[in-house]
C-alpha cells in the first residue's frame, strides 16, 4: 500500500507553514486514493467498463473472431421481430408470475410463524433457511431427481395417495412450475428474513391497541401489522421480480431450456445467442433490452408506491 507511510493530518495540531494548502491536498488525495483505488478499480472495471462496451457491441455484428461490422440499431430492430425472444419473454413472464407472489406470501407466512417464542423454533428456522446455501448446480441435480417421472419422490407420493404421476420437467406445461417450486425452496429464506426483521420493527403497542379495541388476531394482522409491512412488501416484490426476470442458473442446471423450449428464459436465450451461436452483438442488444425493462419496472413500482399510501420506500 503506497499510502502506508504517508504522514497524515492531525486534528487540532498546527500545520507546517511551508507552502500551506497545496501539499496537504496532494497528500490527502494520495492517502485517500491509496485506500480506495484497488477496490474501486476492480468494481468499476468489471461493471461500468464492460457495460459501456456491451452497448458498443450491441451496435455491431460480431462473432468474436471476425472483424466487427457496425450495424447501427439493427440488432435492436431484429429483437423486436424475433419470435424466439418473444417466446423466451413469455416463459420468463410465466415464471415471474408463479414465483414472485408465491415467494412474497411464503416469506410473510413463514416469518409470522417463526416470529414467536415456541420450543424448537430454532430448529424450524435452521431447516427452512438451510436451502439458501445450496448452489444452483446442486439444486439442479436435486430437482431432476425429486421430480423424475419414473422413480422420483414426488411422483411416488402422488402414486401412494392415489393420484396419477406427472411428467414434471418432461412436460412443457409443468416444467416451469417445477422450477418455481425449487426456486421457492432455495430462496424462501431471503423473504422470510426480511419480513422477520420488519415484523420486529413494528411497535408492539400497535397490535396491542388493536386487540384492546376488540380486533381478533386475524383482524389485527390484516389491518394493523400488514399495512406496516407495506414498504417491505414493495421492496421484496421488486427484488424478487428482478431475480425472476434474470432466471438462468436453474434452467441451465435442469432443463437447458427444454422440453420443447418451454423453459427458455430471456437470459438463457441471451446466453445461447452469445456462447452457442456466437452472436455477441445481438446478445448484447438483448441484454440491454432486458436491462431497460428491469429498470422501467423498478422505477415504475417505486413511483407508484410513493404516490399511493404505501410510501416510505
Amino acid at each position: 500500500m503506497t499510502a502506508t507511510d504517508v504522514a497524515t493530518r492531525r486534528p487540532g495540531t498546527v500545520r507546517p507553514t511551508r507552502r500551506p494548502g497545496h501539499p496537504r491536498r496532494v497528500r490527502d488525495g494520495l492517502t485517500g486514493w491509496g485506500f480506495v483505488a484497488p477496490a474501486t478499480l476492480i468494481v468499476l472495471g468489471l461493471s461500468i467498463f464492460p457495460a459501456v462496451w456491451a452497448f458498443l457491441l450491441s451496435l455491431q455484428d460480431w462473432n468474436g473472431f471476425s472483424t466487427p461490422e457496425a450495424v447501427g440499431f439493427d440488432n435492436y430492430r431484429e429483437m423486436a421481430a424475433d419470435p424466439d425472444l418473444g417466446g423466451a419473454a413469455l416463459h420468463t413472464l410465466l415464471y415471474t408470475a408463479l414465483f414472485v407472489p408465491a415467494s412474497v406470501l411464503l416469506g410473510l407466512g413463514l416469518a409470522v410463524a417463526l416470529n414467536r417464542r415456541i420450543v424448537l423454533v430454532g430448529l424450524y428456522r435452521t431447516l427452512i433457511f438451510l436451502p439458501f446455501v445450496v448452489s444452483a448446480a446442486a439444486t439442479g441435480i436435486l430437482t431432476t431427481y425429486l421430480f423424475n417421472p419414473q422413480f422420483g419422490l414426488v411422483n411416488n407420493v402422488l402414486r401412494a395417495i392415489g393420484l396419477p404421476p406427472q411428467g414434471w420437467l418432461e412436460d412443457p406445461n409443468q416444467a416451469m412450475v417445477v422450477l418455481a417450486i425449487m426456486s421457492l425452496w432455495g430462496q424462501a429464506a431471503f423473504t422470510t428474513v426480511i419480513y422477520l426483521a420488519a415484523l420486529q420493527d413494528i411497535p408492539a403497542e400497535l397490535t396491542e391497541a388493536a386487540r384492546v379495541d376488540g380486533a381478533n388476531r386475524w383482524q389485527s394482522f390484516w389491518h394493523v401489522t400488514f399495512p406496516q409491512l407495506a414498504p417491505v412488501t414493495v421492496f421484496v416484490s421488486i427484488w424478487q421480480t428482478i431475480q425472476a426476470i434474470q432466471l438462468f442458473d436453474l434452467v441451465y442446471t435442469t432443463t437447458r431450456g427444454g422440453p420443447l423450449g418451454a423453459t427458455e428464459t430471456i437470459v438463457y436465450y441471451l446466453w445461447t445467442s452469445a456462447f452457442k451461436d456466437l452472436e455477441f452483438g445481438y446478445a448484447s442488444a438483448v441484454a440491454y433490452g432486458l436491462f431497460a425493462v428491469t429498470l422501467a419496472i423498478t422505477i415504475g413500482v417505486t413511483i407508484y408506491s410513493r404516490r399511493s399510501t404505501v410510501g416510505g420506500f
Partner: protein
Amino acid sequence: MTVLATPTRPSSSWPPSDTPAEEAPHSKPRRGWWHLVLVPVALLFATPFVQMFLTSLTPESEINRFPVRFFPSELTLDGYAKLFRDTDVLLWTSNTVLVSLVAVGSHLVLCSLAGYGFARLKFPGRNVGFFMIIATIMIPTQLLMVPTYVMFARVGIIDTLAAAMVPWLASVFGIFLMRQFFLSLPVELEEAALLDGCSRFTTFWRIILPLARPALATLAIFTLLSSWNDLVWPLIAINDPSAFTLQLGITNFQGARRTDWSLLMASNVVATLPLIVFFVFAQKQFIATMSFTGVKG
C-alpha cells in the same frame, strides 16, 4: 444469479440484532398449534437434503427400481468411492477452495480499505467515486457476460482459475457494507491514535480493523457463499476440465452421468456439505448476511 445488493432493512440499524425469533413481545409464548404449521413445512424443506444424503449412500441397484423405497435396505459408500476414483472431483474441490480463499481474502482486505477510505478520509474525487460504485448496483450480471468474456479472452485468462476469481476480488456490496460499519464507529477512537502519531494506515490496521470483526464476518460469509456457489462466470470462461470449479464439474456430470444417481448425489454432498456445516455453526452471521443481500448462487 448473484446480485449485488442494497441494504434491505431500511428501518433497522446495523449491525443486525440477534436471532430474530426470540423477541416477539406481543405473542404469547407456547401457542402449540403453530407447530402444526411448522412441522410439515420444516419437513418439506428438509426432504431434499434427506434424499440427497440417503441417495448418495444407496446401492446403485436400489435406485432405479420398483417399488421405490425411501430408505435403502443397506447403506454403502460406493457412490463416493466411484466419485473420488473415476472423476476429478478432488481437483475441482481444491480449485473451488482456492477460488474461495482468494475471493474472501481479497474481499476482506480491499473492501475494508475502500470502505474506510470512503467513510473517513477526505480526498478529491471521493464522492464521485463512491457514487459511481453505488450506481453500478443497477447493472445486471447478464449485461456483463459478453464483454467480460471478451475481456478475459484478451487478457488471456480463459480456461484458468483466474477467470473464476477475478469477478470476486471486490464488490459493491463489500465496499458499501464496510463503509456503513466504519461510519457507525465513534471518530474519537482514531483521533486519539492519530494524535499519538500513528499514520492513517497504522490507525486503520491496529485500531479500527480489529473492531470491525462482525462486519468482516458478514463480508466473509457473503463472499464465501457467492464464490463457492458461482456458476455463471466459470461457465462462460472455463471449458478445460482441469480448471473446473466444483459447481461447473457437477453441472457437467448431469450430461455425462445422468443416471448414476449415487455418484451424482455424492458429488452434491461434497459441493454442499461444507456450506451446510458452516451455516449450522455460524447461523447468526448467515442471517445477518442474508438480510443485507439478495445473494443466491
